[in-house]
C-alpha cells in the first residue's frame, strides 16, 4: 500500500499554511494569554483568594489552563475538519483534481489526518508555552500534556471527518458546533469539575472524548496522581474515538470520492 501521496497532500496543506502562518500563529499565542489572564487571573481571583485555594487544591488558573488546552485542541480539530474539508470535496473540487493523478482516496484522507495532527500540534505547543509562562505547568512531566492534547484533537477530528464526508451542504456544521462542540467546551470539565453537574450532563461529558482528554492533560500539568485504571480508561476512550473515527472517515471519503 503506497502512502507517498499522503505526504504530498500534507505538503499541499503546508503550502497553503505558509501564506497565513504568521497571523495564525500570533492568534495561537494571544488567545491563551487572553483566556488565562481574564478567566484564570481575573475570574479566578473571585474563586480563590491567596492561600485559600478552592478548586481541587490549586490556583484556579492552574486548574483552568489544562482544561482550556484540551478544549482548544477540540475546537481546532472542529475548525479544520468541517468547512475546509467540504470545500475541497465539493466547492473547489481540489480532491477531484488530486484524484486525477496516481494519488488514491486513502492517501488524500491520511494526508488530511496528518495535517489535522500538525495543525493541532502547532496550537498545542503555542498554548503550552503560554502555560509555562503563567507557571501553570508543575513538573517537567507536564510535557506529556502535549501528545495527550494532540490525541484529544484527533479523537474529535477523525470522527468529524467522517461526519463531513456525509454532508451535502454546510448546515450540518452549525448543528455539530451547537450541539456538541460548544456544550462540551462549557461542560466537559474545562472550567469546573464535572461532578458539580446534573447527572445527564455528566453522562454526556463522559461518553465523549473531551472530558477524558481534560482529565489526562490536567493530571499531567498539575503533576497530580491519577489512578492507573482511570488513566487507562481515559486513554482507551481517546484512542477508541480516534481509531473508529479514522476507520469511518476513510470509509466516508472512499464512498464520497470513489464516485
Amino acid at each position, binding site marked *: 500500500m503506497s502512502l507517498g*501521496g499522503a505526504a504530498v497532500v500534507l505538503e*499541499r496543506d503546508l503550502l*497553503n499554511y505558509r501564506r497565513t502562518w504568521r497571523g495564525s500563529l500570533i492568534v495561537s499565542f494571544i488567545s491563551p494569554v487572553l483566556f488565562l489572564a481574564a478567566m484564570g487571573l481575573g475570574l479566578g481571583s473571585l474563586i480563590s483568594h491567596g492561600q485559600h485555594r478552592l478548586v481541587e487544591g490549586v490556583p484556579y488558573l492552574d486548574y483552568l489552563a489544562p482544561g482550556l488546552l484540551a478544549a482548544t485542541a477540540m475546537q481546532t480539530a472542529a475548525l479544520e475538519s468541517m468547512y475546509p474539508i467540504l470545500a475541497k470535496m465539493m466547492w473547489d473540487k481540489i480532491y*477531484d483534481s488530486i484524484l486525477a493523478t496516481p494519488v488514491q482516496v486513502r492517501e488524500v484522507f491520511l494526508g488530511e489526518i496528518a495535517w489535522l495532527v500538525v495543525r493541532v500540534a502547532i496550537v498545542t505547543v503555542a498554548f503550552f508555552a503560554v502555560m509555562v509562562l503563567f507557571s501553570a505547568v508543575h513538573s517537567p512531566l507536564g510535557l506529556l500534556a502535549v501528545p495527550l492534547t494532540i490525541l484529544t484533537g484527533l479523537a474529535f477530528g477523525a470522527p468529524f471527518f467522517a461526519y463531513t464526508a456525509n454532508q451535502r451542504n454546510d448546515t450540518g456544521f452549525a448543528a455539530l458546533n451547537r450541539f456538541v462542540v460548544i456544550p462540551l467546551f462549557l461542560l466537559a470539565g474545562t472550567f469546573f469539575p464535572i461532578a458539580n453537574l446534573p447527572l445527564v450532563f455528566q453522562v454526556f461529558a463522559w461518553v465523549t472524548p473531551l472530558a477524558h482528554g481534560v482529565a489526562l492533560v490536567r493530571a499531567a500539568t498539575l503533576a497530580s496522581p491519577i489512578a492507573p485504571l482511570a488513566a487507562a480508561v481515559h486513554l482507551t476512550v481517546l484512542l477508541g474515538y480516534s481509531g473508529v473515527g479514522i476507520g469511518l472517515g476513510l470509509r466516508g471519503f472512499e464512498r464520497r470520492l470513489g464516485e
Partner: protein
Amino acid sequence: MEAVQTPSRSLIHARGLVKRFGSFTAVDGIDFDVEPGEAFGFLGPNGAGKTSTMRMIGCVSPVSGGSLRVLGMDPAVDGARIRARLGVVPQADTLDLEISVEDNLFIYGRFFGLSRARARQRARELLEFVQLTDRARDDVEPLSGGMKRRLVIARGLVNEPDLLLLDEPTTGLDPQARHLVWDRLYRLKQRGVSQVLTTHYMDEAEQLCDRLVVMDKGRIVAAGSPRELIDRYSTREVLELRFPADARISLDGLPDGLAERVEVLPDRVLLYTADGEAAIAGVHQRGLVPVSSLIRRSTLEDVFLRLTGRSLVD
C-alpha cells in the same frame, strides 16, 4: 468497415462501453479506438455523455459495462498506473485557489511523484509555455477565464503525459482566448502529444481533431475525419436563406433540381447543394424573395443537423 485494431497498440480501446447513473444510461454502448499521435474528438451537444466517457477514460469513474483499455491496461485494475501517464483538463477548472499560480503546477508535479526540484523546474517551463510566467506568484482567483484554462492545461502537462484528455477546453472563453488555447494545443500535437478532446463547437472539432465521433444521447452516430464526415453527410455548399418573419412561403418542391436536401430552421432555411450559385438562381426563378442569402461551405454543424435533426448549440 475499418480494420480492427489490436488493443495493445491503441492508446484507448473501447467496445460496448456503458456508463449508468442509477437507472439512467449516460453512455450507451460505444465503440472507439484512439491511436498514438492523433487528436481524437467527441463532438456532441450538452448531455450527450462526453464528460461521462472522459471520466471513465481518466480512471476516476468506474465503467458500468462493456470493455475499456487505456494505454493497454484495465482502469478497474491499474487505475493509478494509467493516471500516472495521463494528463487531464477537466470541464470545470478545479484549480487550487489557496496556493499561488506556480504552486498549482508545482504541487501537481509532486502528486505525480516528481522531486521538488524537478516539479519546480517543470512548473516554470510550463508557465512559460502557456504564457503565464509573469503571474507565477499571483493568486489564481483574479486570473481571466482564458488564463485559468491555460493554467489547467499546463497542469495537465506536468507529468509529460502520453495522452492528454481535454473536456471542453475552450467552452466559455472569448474568441481571442480560444485561439490562444487552440494554438497551444496545436503545438502539443506537433510535438506528438496524443489528445482526446470533447467539444460542442464544430469549429473547434474541425480545427483540432484528426478524427472524431459524433455523439448524441449516449451513442455514437457517426465517426471519421471532419472532411470525411462532411463529404459523407453533407453537400459541398450550403445556401442559407432568410425570409421576412411574416412571409408564408411554400417550400414544397424547392429541393427538386435545386438542392439535395432542405432544412427549415426557426430563423432560416438551409439548402444543401453542390452549387450554391445555381441554387440561388433557381430560388429567384421560382419567385421567392429572401431577405438575405449566403453561400458557405458545409461544416460539422450541418453533419450534426443531418444526423440528429437538431443543432449542436441550443
